[in-house]
């Protein structure tokens, strides 16, 4: 029995690690989305975290923990720098600006050979990321998000999500709240980047482009942006799906697309809204205001 478990872990450890890593990223986006910030900066933040942490471990010989912390701080600092001017923009413009940031980081990574290895990337990165690191980070993450949601901060954010103009008139400092959430999102994505870099021996500029940013957005949206477990469900679903559909190599991509469209069409509040519908029909709850009313875009 033990041997079978060991074999299972050896066979699927990377999928498990990727699920955990993507869940972590999903929470980074979950925070941004909870104040209606459709951020495409994830790829950029992750690249900063990845390259800076690899520099620290490989060039300066620092231990893993401070390198991850430094990666996270790089992500947070970048978020603060671009957030300050950009968060005054709304909707589409914010999205465009964050997309621009990711592209700028990618192009710098391509051209700054001495630091990033350019298009060739960095190879033979030591594998420091352990599964328990990711589990621990995720548990802390979920706890923090859970606590925040119940606090004044969480209610202020919920108000901003409903209508930021009204929230402003109620005395909520919309800009400050958004900025702090965006910085937190940058911190988490930077940390995830550092973990990702030390997981698979190799990083290159292509890893952190627009595709990464869009994927990261789909995790919480697919899982549900109002439920605490939404990001995990979305991330695990999207990570396992390509593997689970392996029985049909030809139809795989079509099936994946169809499943995602189905979720978006029939469960517009994310996959977890199934549970919520059931629960609500049982006892009309004292759910959070933010989740009760259907939202229109912006």
């Amino acid at each position, binding site marked *: 029995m033990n041997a079978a478990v060991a074999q299972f872990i050896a*066979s699927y450890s990377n999928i498990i690690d990727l699920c955990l890593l993507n869940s972590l990223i999903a929470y980074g986006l979950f925070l941004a989305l909870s104040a209606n910030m459709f951020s495409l900066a994830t790829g950029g933040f992750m690249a900063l975290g990845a390259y800076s942490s690899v520099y620290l471990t490989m060039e300066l010989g620092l231990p893993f923990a401070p390198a991850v912390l430094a990666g996270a701080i790089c992500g947070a600092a970048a978020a603060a720098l671009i957030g300050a001017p950009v968060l005054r923009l709304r909707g589409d413009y914010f999205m465009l600006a964050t997309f621009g940031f990711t592209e700028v980081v990618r192009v710098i990574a391509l051209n700054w050979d001495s630091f990033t290895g350019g298009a060739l990337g960095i190879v033979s990165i030591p594998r420091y990321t352990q599964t328990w690191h990711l589990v621990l980070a995720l548990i802390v993450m979920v706890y923090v998000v859970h606590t925040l949601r119940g606090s004044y901060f969480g209610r202020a954010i919920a108000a901003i999500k409903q209508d930021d103009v009204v929230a402003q008139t109620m005395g909520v400092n919309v800009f400050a709240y958004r900025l702090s959430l965006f910085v937190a999102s940058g911190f988490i994505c930077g940390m995830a980047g550092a973990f990702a870099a030390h997981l698979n021996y190799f990083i290159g*500029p292509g*890893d952190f482009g627009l595709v990464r940013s869009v994927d990261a957005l789909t995790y919480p949206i697919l899982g549900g942006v109002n439920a605490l477990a939404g990001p995990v469900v979305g991330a695990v679903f999207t990570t396992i799906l390509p593997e689970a559909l392996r029985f049909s190599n030809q139809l795989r991509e079509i099936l994946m697309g169809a499943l995602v469209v189905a979720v978006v069409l029939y469960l517009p509040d994310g996959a977890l809204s199934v549970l919520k519908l059931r629960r609500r029909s049982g006892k009309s709850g004292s759910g959070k205001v933010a989740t009760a009313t259907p939202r229109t875009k912006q």
Partner: protein
Amino acid sequence: MKYVALSACVALAVASITPAAAADEQIKVGIVQATSGGSAALYGTMGKNAALLAIDEINGSGMLGASKLVPIYEDDAGDRGQAVNIFQRLIFQEKVSVIFGPTLATSAFAADPIAQKAQVLVIANSNTAPGITAMGDFIFRTSPPEAGVFPGVLRYAKKKFNLKTAAQIYGIDDTLMKTAYGVHKKALEDEGIKIVDTETFQKGDVDYSAQLTKIKGANPDAIVIGGLAEESANIVRQARQLGIPQSVPIMGAVASISTKMAELGGAAAEGYLVGSTWYMSYDAARNKSFVEAYRKRYNSDPDSFAAQGYTAVYAFADAVKRAGGVGDVKKLRDAVAATKNLDSPMGPFSFDTDREPVIDPKVLAVKDGKFTPVTNE
């Protein structure tokens, strides 16, 4: 959760199957190629098709006696995470003896270390980046790095066109193109050819007139392109349009060899020089039978990645035969490493001490819209 439970059942089921007796061994071999997900699929499909063809031929011919190769093919979609997932499963669950692939070097850098650690052979057929085989003594490849073929092309061109100076142009945002640039630069320096101008572009660019105007101003004896098929074709065409004369030869990277290159380049591509391990009309009995079998089965022409993928499988099967099975991993690895003058579609094939392929490089030039060996001129 359901999926995890299901996988656990599968894992248990597989674990309970004990290996068959050596006499009629089922030798599991993994094929990891990208057959979906962008341009990598072009290379991956070739590699996959050729490997499956070779496996069927080997099983049909009784080359391994009663033993059979059992292929397990997986698509990594050119995605590194998926490549690692597949490697782990093929190695620890399916217990394959060898993995042919992966298509992209970036996937190889992440996935090959897993195979190396578990002492499972990897024979790649399309990785040309430097440092692939340096990952460990179980990692082989049948695809020569650019450095294996370009110096031959340059020597030929230097002699024929009496080159003193050259200009380089290359793509900075792609592993293949950038690797090619480094190799080209070193080869030019080794031959004592002065590099008078170096220009760059990005994948997908269509207008190269600014760079080519500068190159024209530098007046080089030759132009060397580090690009893929599409980029190289456009550069060649625009260079001639700008009035860089046909007497200035243009040389390209291995990665630009494609019928598309000759098609898109049109008349301007005439005389475009590249180095390769293989070409369709290569005059060898082994190649004729390979091309014929490939066409018959897939109704399309093979390319050099197919020839390399086909050779990879035969190199493995040959080693299995010499090692007397796959039971002794060390012995099998040594047998693969000892591959010498194997009769392949590319000519006699060997591995050197760094597990890199040794193949006679062939210099090809575009003639009447086709890549043709220059020796036949």
